[in-house]
């Protein structure tokens, strides 16, 4: 509350009462409050004035929660992104992270997999640390929930803010270096007259994926004939069944295996909530249920949520509040057999191989179908595997937050808050009776393994806040003290050889070879925080923050770290010269800001700084003796990683709010990054943790929102874009390759010092040879014929190191990266009378994708099913114009055209996806008044509507590959075993009483 153009001012008490004395007769009173539109009133000598303030809508006037306080976006000097929650809630997804895609610039989200319940990979402004987690910190109502975004009920969300740079996130300490996603759930309203009841639901179906072109039985056998002769006698390993087919094709049916493994799958969601409040308090209680079956065989996800928020106003000085939430979910996992997804198994399945036998049993593979004398050549029926395997994951989450806030003196508030989150995880991996010739499955026969883990975290926050305005000066200072503890305990145990496949617990009869393992991991943090906002005349804005952290993960002498930050802003549009100029009617608000800050990370194991002994028991004929020995050298002086974050940005508003947006440029360096420096095997090997690493991330973000009105049509269009360039300046070694099953796609991704993440280094190809002459003339600079074993129709590989030979180590070149360079989102909302429309689009550009499925089905050798493209293979007689490499059963020994380490399978991966289209209709209130319902809205939704991409595989969004290690640093862009996302059609209804 200010008397305009004077230094007279005051603040109201909690009850809203104020008292101000001014000498003038006529004054203008300026009343402002966070969350409300600033109002000016001309006072002409009245003694008493009643003032009503109006709540703010979205725009620079909006309220942001930053740290333990809240500010207006106008006054913010740091980089904070606000999610458009309304459009997020129009996405029928089970995972809130999926809804967040394309919503905030700089927040990069990619699905690891299209299966329901699968992990989403999130990062903010790029991946900036090598070991450890790169997921942003997710805080829901002050609690760091164990379950993460996946276990949240999206309908409970009121607002999401993303804190992107050091100066905004500093207050959250370690792990805030990855950025912070602050979620606030809906609360009741103090001014409600009565409780409001809302029910929402949607039901829908998901469509199976269409599939790629594979040969049918006739075409398949034709290809075999081209390679092994008309009568298939060219190789003793040609399966018997193929010869039988030749003799009697009529005895066999054609099966489209891609069709077999996919079905339409339903999904539904129900949500009910009650909220209300009054002078003494507010409340909101909600319950939700979501069930999404997957289009891929045997996948699915379901979850139930309950949440209760309340706040109590004890008197005008003290507020007490709490939120309790509970969630429980079950994910039915995809049956990966032999480290291959259902899809990779299905595409290789013979077109005449029937999933079921005439008697109804699942058909298992056998030598009759297989390629000769080795079980490895057999192809497994995923239905059979699914019938003997079961591996569901059950997750539970219970989170509580309680706080008390008291105003001690005017402007000074003390807040104490405590939260606790408990997550449980249970996974039972059951494997039944393998049956004949299925010995190659990894799991032991009739085995059960149960894994149970409990993880928890709690924190206690003590903060004091002082807020005061003196004339044009405004202060807001917070200081506090936080303690946190994290823990995780797991037990896993199992047995095998049970008597029957009806066993579902470890007590089942007949179980043998019991084993059990377990571990406890705990860590703790203590921090002191301080944050100060200062603004002068709402034009010059400063924020300073400081944090001192001590972590249990470092030795005593290296335990503490100091992390400061500062950011400044200049509200140009409040300057006199701006307001006086003509431009102020066009650019109504403009703020320039810049920030610099340091955040700490503790990316290493909980106990890594202490050396432990290795237990190595030994057998001597008849007895076991203990063996203990010190391990390889460890670093006791390991300490904090530092993220140094710099941002400059611009927030603007044009034409009074019709258009608003921002630009940001950021440059982040992770210094002292903890990396494992490998020791040479000759000195014992092992890894030595060291603060030596260095990663740099930089990029640009842009947001534009445009709202307008044409007659009765209101619309808003929002566009955001973010770029990231990651440079691995020092990762401990020159080259890193990931580990994982190599037998399908060996070693195509490398990380190089000085390069980026998930880089494909492959041998380049350059068409095919069309004549022997071409082969003989293909020489290196010394005249050596490079590919002397080639024949016409073979691929010409590029001899990058000019040594006259094509080798994997000498001739790989950088082809591209699997991580998108640019991420974009576009959201369009429109209202016309009672209709509303929403369209959401996301896109990612600049990445390449490796189509590992093509590698699997384009191999001419082996006897699995083939891609239709092989029908067009080069043949000097019947198909000399083709550019597709020739069929050669001896491909591996000859030119190896189908080698996985060439760029043959690399495609451009950029895509634009129309994620959602939603059309809704609000029933006229006249209809509803009679039944005492306050509003009803019906809607239809289309999800994953269409993709525009050059990529020929199932889904261009390959955030990571689940089978190797599901880590985007190593596998982004590697399309191996990534289940596609399904298109879905939904209808739904929202009812409010």
């Amino acid at each position: 509350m200010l008397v305009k153009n004077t230094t007279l001012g005051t603040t109201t008490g909690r009850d809203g009462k104020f008292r101000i004395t001014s000498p003038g007769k006529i004054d203008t009173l300026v009343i402002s409050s966070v969350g409300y539109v600033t109002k000016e009133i001309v006072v002409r000598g009245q003694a008493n004035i009643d003032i009503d303030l109006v709540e703010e809508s979205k725009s620079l006037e909006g309220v942001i929660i930053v740290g333990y306080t809240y500010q207006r976006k106008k006054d913010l000097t740091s980089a904070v992104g606000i999610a458009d929650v309304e459009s997020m809630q129009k996405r029928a997804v089970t995972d809130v992270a999926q809804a967040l895609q394309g919503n905030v610039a700089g927040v990069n989200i990619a699905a690891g997999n299209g299966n329901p319940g699968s992990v989403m990979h999130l990062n903010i402004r790029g991946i900036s640390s090598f070991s450890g987690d790169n997921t942003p910190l997710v805080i829901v109502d002050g609690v760091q929930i164990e379950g993460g975004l996946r276990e949240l009920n999206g309908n409970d969300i009121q607002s999401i803010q993303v804190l992107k740079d050091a100066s905004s996130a500093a207050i959250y300490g370690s792990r805030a270096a990855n950025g912070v996603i602050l979620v606030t759930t809906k609360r009741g309203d103090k001014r409600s007259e009565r409780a409001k009841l809302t029910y929402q639901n949607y039901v829908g179906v998901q469509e199976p994926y269409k599939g790629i072109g594979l040969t049918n039985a006739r075409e398949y056998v034709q290809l075999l004939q081209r390679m092994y002769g008309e009568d298939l006698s060219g190789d003793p390993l040609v399966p018997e069944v193929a010869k039988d087919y030749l003799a009697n094709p009529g005895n066999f049916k054609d099966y489209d295996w891609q069709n077999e493994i996919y079905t339409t799958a339903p999904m539904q969601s129900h949500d009910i909530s009650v909220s209300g409040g009054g002078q003494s308090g507010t409340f909101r209680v909600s319950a939700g249920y979501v069930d999404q079956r997957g289009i891929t065989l045997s996948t699915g996800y379901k979850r139930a949520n309950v949440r209760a928020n309340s706040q109590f106003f004890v008197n005008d000085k003290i507020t007490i509040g709490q939120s309790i939430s509970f969630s429980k979910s079950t994910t039915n996992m995809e049956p990966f057999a032999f480290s291959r997804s259902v899809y990779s198994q299905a595409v290789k399945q013979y077109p005449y191989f029937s999933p079921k036998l005439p008697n109804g049993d699942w058909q298992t593979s056998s030598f009759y179908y297989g390629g000769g004398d080795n079980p490895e050549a057999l192809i497994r029926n995923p239905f059979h595997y699914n019938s003997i395997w079961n591996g569901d994951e059950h997750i539970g989450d219970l989170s509580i937050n309680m706080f008390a806030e008291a105003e001690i003196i005017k402007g000074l508030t003390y807040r104490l808050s405590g939260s606790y989150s408990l997550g449980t995880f249970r996974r039972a991996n059951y494997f039944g009776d393998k049956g004949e010739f299925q010995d190659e499955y990894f799991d032991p026969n009739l085995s059960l393994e149960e894994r149970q883990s409990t993880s928890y975290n709690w924190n206690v926050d003590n903060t004091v806040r002082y807020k005061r305005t003196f004339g044009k000066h405004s202060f807001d200072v917070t200081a506090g003290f936080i303690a946190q503890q994290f823990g995780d305990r797991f037990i896993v145990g199992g047995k095998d050889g049970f008597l029957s496949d009806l066993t579902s617990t470890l007590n089942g009869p007949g179980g043998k070879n019991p084993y059990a393992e377990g571990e406890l991991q705990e860590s703790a943090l203590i921090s002191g925080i301080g944050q100060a906002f200062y603004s002068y005349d709402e034009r010059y804005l400063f924020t300073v923050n400081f944090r001192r952290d001590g972590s249990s993960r470092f030795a005593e002498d290296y335990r503490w770290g100091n992390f400061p930050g500062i950011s400044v802003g200049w509200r140009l549009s409040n300057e006199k010269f701006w307001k006086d100029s003509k431009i102020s009617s066009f650019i109504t608000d403009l703020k320039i800001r810049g920030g610099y800050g340091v955040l700490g990370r503790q990316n290493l194991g909980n106990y890594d700084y202490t050396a432990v002994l290795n237990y190595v028991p030994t057998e001597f004929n008849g007895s076991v003796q203990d063996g203990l020995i010190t391990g390889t050298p460890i670093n006791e002086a390991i300490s904090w990683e530092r993220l140094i974050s710099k941002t400059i940005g611009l927030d603007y508003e044009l034409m009074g709010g019709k258009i608003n947006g921002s630009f940001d440029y950021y440059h982040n360096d992770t210094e002292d990054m903890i990396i494992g420096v490998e020791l040479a095997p000759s000195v014992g090997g092992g890894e030595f943790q060291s603060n030596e690493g260095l990663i740099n991330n930089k990029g640009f973000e842009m947001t534009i929102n445009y709202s307008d009105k044409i007659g009765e049509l209101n619309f808003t269009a929002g566009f955001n874009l973010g770029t990231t360039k990651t440079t691995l300046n020092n990762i401990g070694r020159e080259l890193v390759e990931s580990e994982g099953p190599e037998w399908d796609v060996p070693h195509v991704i490398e990380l190089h010092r000085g390069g980026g993440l998930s880089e494909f280094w492959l041998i380049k190809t350059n068409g095919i040879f069309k004549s022997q002459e071409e082969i003989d003339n293909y020489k290196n600079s010394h005249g050596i014929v490079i590919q002397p074993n080639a024949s016409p129709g073979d691929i010409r590989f590029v001899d990058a190191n000019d040594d006259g030979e094509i080798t994997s180590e000498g001739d790989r070149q950088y082809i591209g990266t699997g991580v998108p360079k640019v991420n974009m989102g576009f959201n369009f909302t429109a209202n016309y009378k009672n209709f509303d429309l929403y369209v959401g689009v996301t896109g990612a550009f600049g990445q390449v994708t490796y189509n590992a499925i093509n590698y699997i089905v384009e191999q001419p050798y082996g006897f699995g099913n083939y891609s239709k493209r092989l029908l067009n293979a080069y043949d000097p007689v019947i198909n000399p114009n083709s550019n597709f490499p020739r069929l050669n059963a001896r491909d591996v020994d000859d030119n190896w055209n189908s080698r996985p380490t060439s760029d043959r399978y690399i495609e451009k991966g950029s895509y634009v996806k129309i994620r959602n289209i939603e059309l809704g209709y609000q029933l006229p209130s006249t209809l509803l008044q009679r039944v005492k319902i306050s509003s009803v809205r019906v809607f239809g939704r289309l999800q994953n509507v269409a993709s525009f991409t050059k990529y020929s595989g199932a889904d261009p969004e390959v955030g990571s590959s689940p089978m190797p290690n599901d880590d985007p640093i190593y596998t982004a862009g590697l399309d191996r075993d990534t289940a596609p996302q399904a298109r879905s059609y939904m209808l739904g209804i929202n009812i409010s009483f």
Partner: protein
Amino acid sequence: MKKYLISYKIAAVILLLNIFSASCKKDFLERKNPNDITAGSFFETPEQVQQAVNTLYPAMTSVRMLFEQNARGGDATLTSGAFDVQIAFFNFQSTPESGDTDPLWENIYGMIYRANTVLANMDRADWAGEEDLKNSLTAETHFFRGVGYFYLAHMFGQVPIVTKPAETEEEFNPAKAASPDEVYDQAIADLTIAKNGLPIEQEDVGRATKGAATGFLGKTYLYRAGYLGQDNNKALAAAEFKEVIDMGIYGLVDNYEDNFTAVNENNEESLFEIQFSYNGGIGTPQQDRVFNSIPGIGFEIFLRPSEWLMEEMGKEKTIGNEFDPRFLQTVYFHGGLPLFGVPYDQLGDGISCEEGTSVGGAPDGSSSTEGGWWRKYLNVNYSCEPAISEDRGSENNERILRYADILLMYAESVADTDPAAANAALTEVRDRANLPVQSFAGDALMEEIRHQRVLEFTYENTHYFDLIRWNLLEQELMDHGTDAQLENFESVKHKYFPIPESEINNNTNLEQNDPWK
């Protein structure tokens, strides 16, 4: 009144803050690892040193790589199920990047690292009154380091010699030895200490003995003679082997099969074997030759006996005009012994278990009679459960050094200087196989020794290295190698395995060997 209220409130706040800061003691940030024993005080008692020495035995386990040691040499051929990387290795096409033989280097040095750690810290313990134990443990430790350097010398050639745990930057990046000689010298020095300090027999069966150390010492001299062309070492080798023979405690077991099953382990023919046992899954080493499979039993099958091998083994019949028992026990073939009661021509798709009995896939005898499968070290007692224990491992010990090897190596080392002694040793081996008595001279003597080595030690990680030290690998490939092998083989390059990338990338003082660059 208001003032008091205000100051009350302030006091309350300050008090609360104090309580919370005081309750967070320094201990809050001290967390001990509950899952392991911290290395705080170790190597302080003789018992602890003993525990450390025990860990050397499991380290030896991982110095065996079935495929890489048995694929080349002509006695094995690939099956259709072999992976691309294995085909490349077999064809001499693999590159250092393939990393096939890396685990050999890494595991041997792991063993040497443990030995160095023990030797560097041994003196810290209080050995009052236990001098004998100290000497014995020292000798035991040297045994492993000596064997380690012996393996490195003949598999990799000129390697870094590391004799203590690294501390300085220089030590963490050890350079190569000045010559391959130095590596052999190191092995010889260590094995000599071991030989002198170890007892003839150990209470704990399976521990290194004087005989084992002497045998390895002899082997080191003999390999040196072949690999480095230093024939004078043969006499030194002969002396060691004679010592083993003269100990009088070793002999050949009557039943050849006893060297490869869990029925008669640690028998009189065994000089050193790695002890395997399930032990309830506590983590003791287990037999991992799971790749020894035949259709229907086991997992991956990458190798089969080659045509040449079966011919070679079938050349000479026993006194009773039957196949050589070593042939019958090494290969499962038509005309040989049935396996679990299933004759080779009934094998069909594979052996399976029907109501507790093993049956072949073609009981009518219509299965192919060509070729064969490995039988040695099949590691199952019978095909029906519960034959294979936890994790497909088994309790069958892996024999590292046996008396037949000592005899044949002795014969080899004295073939030129003392043919009579050579023949005597040779005859002992032939006798066990029931072969007719015969005497050999001149070139025929070495030929017969080589022939007997094939019959005795096929599939025991030996033949390939024997061929290299006899300088006969190239000849062998020309005689019965595949075209692909001949195309890619280079005698200088393939004499030794390449240095692993994990060493080159992390050791600034080491470069890849020239032929492999």
